[in-house]
């Protein structure tokens, strides 16, 4: 058994005993979770299990009532706001694809690019050859080079999801939180998204929240099942889906 201190030395994200309640309802109930560098992790759980609230806590949108949220062993995320946390290297994809619809695909990526984000730095920013190359590279990764001048509003649902993932890549995060990336996607798009996420996870940690069991099987990674705000089971997909508690709480329904 690892002691906590041993786990902490190599963790990218470390949640210990985190709780938060809204008007008396415990959305997260002494949740503990460790994500290691370079790990691809799937999180499943029934509606209301606290998956999105957990992401809100990690990204600074919601402050936990109690508990520790530590990034890279040293940084206490509970003291930071969204912009700080994003700059530290945590990117977040929302459940509903959120891109800048009145900008082109290219501009969306340019805005997301990990450059100085101050008022005056952006006022006087000019696109360098290096930034251009990086955007082209991301366009290839998310397979959208041919649509780079298209307004994001004209993209299909699946393409918006990819564009958003591309924007997160442009942010160069160390940890990517992805909330239901394949909701509303066709089967072909779902399979391609699995490939894309595995590719991304080669160079950074990714946490995926998903309902689609087939998709998680495709990913073939360690799974954490949440229920009622805490961890119910953790392990391979076969291990977790055979756990009687998981079947009772989630799969059996």
């Amino acid at each position, binding site marked *: 058994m690892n002691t906590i201190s041993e786990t902490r030395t190599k963790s990218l994200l470390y949640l210990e005993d985190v709780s938060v309640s809204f008007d008396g309802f415990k959305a997260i109930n002494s949740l503990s979770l460790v994500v290691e560098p370079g790990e691809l992790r799937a999180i499943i759980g029934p509606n209301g299990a606290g998956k999105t609230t957990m992401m809100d806590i990690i990204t600074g949108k919601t402050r936990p009532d109690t508990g520790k949220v530590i990034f890279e062993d040293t940084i206490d995320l509970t003291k930071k706001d969204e912009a700080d946390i994003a700059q530290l290297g945590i990117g977040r994809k929302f459940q509903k694809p959120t891109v800048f619809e009145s900008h082109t695909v290219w501009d969306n990526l340019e*805005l997301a690019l990990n450059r100085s984000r101050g008022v005056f730095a952006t006022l006087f920013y000019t696109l360098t050859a290096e930034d251009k190359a990086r955007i082209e590279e991301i366009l290839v990764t998310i397979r959208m080079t041919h649509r780079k001048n298209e307004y994001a509003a004209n993209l299909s649902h699946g393409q918006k999801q990819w564009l958003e993932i591309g924007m997160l890549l442009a942010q160069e995060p160390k940890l990517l939180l992805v909330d239901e990336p394949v909701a509303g996607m066709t089967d072909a798009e779902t399979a391609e998204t699995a490939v894309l996420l595995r590719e991304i996870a080669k160079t950074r940690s990714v946490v995926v929240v998903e309902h689609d069991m087939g998709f998680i099987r495709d990913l073939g990674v360690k799974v954490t099942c949440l229920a009622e705000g805490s961890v119910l089971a953790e392990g391979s997909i076969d291990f977790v889906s055979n756990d009687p508690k998981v079947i009772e709480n989630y799969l059996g329904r």
Partner: protein
Amino acid sequence: MITGFILRALEGKIVVAVGILLAVAILVPALNLLTAPDSALHIPTYVMALMGKYLCYALLALALDLVWGYCGILSLGHGAFFALGGYAMGMYLMRQIGSRGVYGNPDLPDFMVFLNWKELPWFWYGFDMFPFAMAMVLIVPGLLAFVFGWFAFRSRVNGVYLSIITQAMTYALMLAFFRNDMGFGGNNGLTDFKDILGFQVQAGGTRAVLFAMSAIMLALCLIVASAITCSKFGKVLVGVRDAESRVRFLGFRVENIKLFTFVVSAMFAGIAGALFVPQVGIINPGEFAPANSIEVVVWTAVGGRGTLIGPIIGAILVNAGKSYFTGAFPEFWLFALGGLFIAVTLFLPKGIVGTIQHGWNARKALKAAAAAEKGRDAGAAPTAQQAQAAE
């Protein structure tokens, strides 16, 4: 860096608009001063004064467009910044009166003598100097916007709530400026101006220069606004308008972005107010009236928000309409204004310029699609032949 910033601003439409404004700045005063009053080309002084007023309103509408059209902050209190700029100019003009006032006091404006004040309040110091007063035209509205925005944007006050507190801000200022002991002339405001920089305010030449300055300042502010909106910062602004949380989670400090834009916009409004006051000859607390700020929103919406040119056209058109209506059918003006706002919201939600632009882009897209279609047909033909050959 700076040149790149400015050069980026000079895209087609802006160049045309700036060119027109500069031509107006030269032609209108020339036609007013150099032609005989009975000439067909003559522009009477009252018409020039009216046009100068419209240009100031156009600058105010441009200021609102920057925060509303690009950043999504619907300010219902922009009239306050306009009025503060106007008061700063008015204070300079009051100090220029000197001993020519009714009471002949060399330091105190008439209304202070009337109130039995013995010495100039501290906040009137320095306003006898033109450069100081002009700095205040920018600083006072800018500072108010900064303090107001600092609290509002930091506490993430958004949407309707923000609109309501901006409205409350201008209303509170109106009530304050109505009080005599505020030291700004109470409900009479500041008036009876004599000279500006040693020239008589009412003289034809001075009026012509003030008119030209209004057109030039509008052109300058248009270039600055265009430089801001064409930069990466401008793209972030539109991002804040359309998907604020996405901008936040990309690591931008949304509150700073809004604050900067709000302050720049307030300064534009202040400049507009400062140019307005010597041309109309009075500034009083009525300029803070909430209804004025709402009218600015109507001009901007009519012209097309988020287009920069639109609000300028909207402000000029609606005010020209107002001048006509209030002369011809005075009792119907407010109905016409209300009707116009409803009609624009229902039938031209993008405003005049926005609708034209949209139509233009749609036509371009259609043409491009047609061209692509043709290209595909041409490309597809050989493959069909190849397929046949393969068979």
